[in-house]
């Protein structure tokens, strides 16, 4: 038996023992995860520094702060999420218990990504633990330092059988995918996403795919360009552009393109100084393969800002390209780097058409003071999420489901959405062996009379709440009538 098979068999056995069913156990594990993040802050930050040239502050801000928030939310709301959810009754089920019971699925495989190695690997783990599943965690081998730290330290804080960490590259992942899981959670690109889906389809394993795409960013000419460009600069160049929801390209009218470039230049200098290469808060491309990939995308486009690079350090300066067209090389794939193309469009109509000609993105950004325009873009385009007048922050709101559609993925998570995604919501109908008289209408031999009874009972939806309300109103009316009657009698 291979290492991967052993790990999965052990996790399944541990799950089947029923260990994860009690909420107290899940709370314990979540608290363990929380302790891991607080106590091992330094080791995590060091690993991310080596992987992505991120400072300790950057790591805390973008990786662990969000994770802590998710854990705290799960701890607070677990009892509510895991409780049976009653539903409306009808005449037929009026004396029965009818509800939806959330149940764990079993063993979940979480395949993490390298761009935020802690956030995108461990946030799904929070959902898996809170929904009572076992989980096999496979961090990305590309962010190798983070993977090593996770493999070494996470088992000290969580149940080792239920939540094993498996490191390795493509062969190890393929071996893992041969095993049978009850759900697979994958964050990464759509090519590998399809491979993952194909590998698990024979077991009919459901998948959640958090993929990428080219997230468009439309800037209306009437918006406050200074603030808009600030927010876009932040959203685009954080983590050196390696964010799945980073604004991939800008759409704006030709009349403001010059000003946009100017404002972006000011913000870049303000955030990353004149020499981002020597500035500690500016990241690096993860490896040489991606460095070369991003540099190749610049071919054929006009560099309006930046453009410097250094292969030895995998450094690419914050770069802005102007007068890009839909057919340019940089528009053929998700950039995932610090290169921001600007495409000019005649107005919001052309922008909407441009966006709709392409695959549905994970996020869509609109910068405009005009609410009507924003609502129009919401109604006439489709994307995983839509943000007006800012970038990235919807990721931090646990009440909003985070996920894509079409080429940008399927399924969603964060907060309760993650809990529901990794649970089976089982329909339960608890009846009694009484009131059989009502049931006789459905038994053969079938007659016309039974049919008319059945029609009546099945077609009437009964709102038990309303019935109760009506009963209360009737009682109140009767009481009022009685009191009035006494009053009139006495006078």
């Amino acid at each position, binding site marked *: 038996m291979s290492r991967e098979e052993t790990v999965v068999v052990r996790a399944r056995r541990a799950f089947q023992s029923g260990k994860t069913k009690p909420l107290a156990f899940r709370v314990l594990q979540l608290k363990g995860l929380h302790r891991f993040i607080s106590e091992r802050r330094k080791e995590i930050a060091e690993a991310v520094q080596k992987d992505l040239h991120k400072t300790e502050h950057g790591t805390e801000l973008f990786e662990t*702060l969000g994770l802590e928030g998710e854990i705290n939310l799960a701890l607070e709301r677990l009892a509510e999420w895991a409780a049976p959810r009653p*539903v409306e009754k009808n005449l037929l089920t009026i004396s029965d218990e009818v509800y939806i019971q959330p149940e764990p699925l079993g063993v979940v495989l979480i395949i993490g990504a390298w761009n935020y190695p802690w956030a995108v690997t461990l946030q799904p783990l929070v959902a898996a633990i809170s929904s009572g599943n076992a989980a096999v965690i496979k961090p990305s081998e590309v962010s190798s330092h983070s993977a090593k730290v996770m493999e070494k330290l996470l088992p000290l804080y969580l149940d080792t059988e239920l939540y094993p960490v498996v490191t390795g590259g493509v062969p190890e992942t393929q071996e893992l995918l041969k095993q049978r899981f009850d759900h697979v959670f994958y964050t990464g690109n759509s090519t590998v996403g399809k491979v993952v889906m194909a590998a698990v389809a024979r077991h009919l394993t459901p998948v959640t795919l958090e993929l990428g795409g080219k997230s468009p960013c439309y800037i209306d000419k009437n918006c406050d360009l200074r603030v808009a460009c600030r927010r876009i600069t932040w959203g685009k160049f954080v983590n050196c552009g390696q964010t799945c929801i980073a604004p991939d390209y800008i759409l704006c009218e030709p009349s403001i393109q010059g000003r946009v470039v100017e404002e972006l230049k000011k913000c870049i200098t303000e955030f990353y100084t004149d020499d981002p290469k020597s500035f500690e808060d500016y990241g690096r491309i993860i490896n040489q393969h991606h460095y070369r990939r991003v540099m190749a995308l610049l071919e054929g486009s006009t560099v309006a800002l930046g453009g410097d690079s250094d292969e030895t350090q995998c450094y690419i300066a914050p770069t802005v390209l102007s007068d890009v067209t839909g057919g340019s090389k940089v528009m053929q794939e998700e950039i995932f780097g610090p290169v921001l193309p600007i495409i000019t469009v005649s107005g919001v109509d052309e922008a909407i058409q441009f966006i709709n000609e392409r695959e549905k993105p994970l996020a869509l950004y609109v910068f405009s003071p005009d609410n009507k325009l924003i609502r129009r873009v919401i109604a006439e385009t489709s994307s995983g999420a839509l943000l007006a007048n800012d970038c990235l922050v919807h990721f931090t709101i646990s009440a909003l489901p985070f996920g894509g559609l079409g080429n940008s993925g399927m399924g969603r998570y964060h907060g309760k959405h993650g809990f529901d995604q990794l649970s089976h919501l089982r329909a339960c109908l608890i009846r009694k062996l009484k009131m059989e008289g009502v049931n006789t209408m459905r038994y053969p031999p079938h007659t016309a009379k039974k049919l008319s009874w059945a029609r009546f009972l099945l077609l009437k939806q009964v709102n038990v709440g309303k019935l109760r309300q009506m009963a209360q109103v009737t009682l109140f009316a009767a009481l009022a009538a009685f009191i009035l009657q006494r009053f009139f009698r006495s006078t």
Partner: protein
Amino acid sequence: MSGPPSPSPKNWFRALRRTRLGEPCMKTYPLECVELLKRTRGAFQAGRTVNERFRQTQLEAIVRMLVEHECDFVDALGRDLHKPRFETVISELMLVKNEAVHAINSLKKWMEPQRVERNLTTTLDDCFVMNEPLGVVLIIGAWCSPVHFCLVPLVGAIAAGNCAIVSPSEHSSHTAELLHRLFPSYLDNECFHVVLTGLNELTEIVELKFDHVFFIGNKEDGTRIAQAAIRMLTPVTLVLGSKNPCYVDEHCDIPITARRIAWARFHNAGQNMVAPDYILCHADAKERLLQALRCCIMQFYGSDPRESRSFGRMVNLECLNRTRDLLGKCGKVAVGGKVIEAEKYIAPTILTEVTDSDPIMQQEIFGPVLPILTVNSLDEAITFINQREKPLCVYAYSSNCKVISRLMTETSSGSFCSNDCVLQSLLAVLPFGGVGASGMGSYHGRQSFDNLSHRKSCLLRSTRIESITYLRYPPYEDRNLSLMTWASNLSQRSQGWCQIL
């Protein structure tokens, strides 16, 4: 925006004439489907289905179609499955009508954006989840309840604002043809279509770009459909047949139990995805249960069920032979057992002395045959169920609520029902679907609407209050980070970390 063509006299006579003459329907080939998909997608992109009024009109049209052509449906299902009128009206037409009416009444509420909890720092923002239609949905229905399995998901698809292409099974050919003829007279001709294809063509069709594929049927076909959908990253809902266990405890009212089980197992001649597939009977109750079942079958279908108008037939010879083979190989026939190939008839049959390694226990039965296995305790029953794939339904009969509770919490299945069968799959308020080998995703009522919508997160901020957001910009400073950590600790009771971002 034009509504669907109303059933004008010309259309009505045309439909009537076709129904009477039994004009053969042309099979739809994959190439034609490409064209059809293009047209349907064009209609979707033109925004025809977005409007609430349009969706309501289409749903009302479905109800009208079922009411006005009740006799045609009863006739078609009678020819396909020898389905009694009662079963057609209740488990097919009424069910769909119920769903459609429920959707019409709830549509406004479902379509409303859902506001999410905000905290102090997001009070100035608009934060909500929008329900957006996906696009074009492909619905593939099974032959055992062709109207239900094609039209209930269609109700969900319409309510969610999608266009749809419906593919009823070729095995229930009369019903498929009827739907193919009626759709143009009731539903929008650009947005909703019926195609008539076989499974092989279907896998080719699934590889085209749909926004969701909805499949109800058996596991092998379901797996093929799921694999075909990968090419375009198409999400799928699969509701797959399975062996649904039914536990009968020693402490329960045997006559009532037997009646409910017999009804559930033998209606539609056992060709029902939610019927109890086999019984796990406590040893002490077995003889009584067998006797009670014998009496029920007599009461329901008379001494010769072949003569009863309330008993169905197998859909085709292939299914008949498959079930007959299973019958011949194991167990002892305690009731029934008669097979008449010419009439596609298998008598309501009960088998005893069946063991778990018998061929009949290795696949879904899908015929009027009910094996009874004996268990000595509840623990044994739970172990037996858990050793197998997760089924679509688990049933339990007992007057002891602790037994029910244990069986429910210690097993997993798409749905669970105690002291009855099938009913949980007929309610619009309960999601119906499988888990593990019995499928993924679910439908009915609100669940259909949610499953066939994209829930788009929207956060609308303003560019005015920039002074707070400056904390997040580089250069990162200790002071800024501690402020943000402090703020996020404060706002932990709400639904987000550091809303100051």
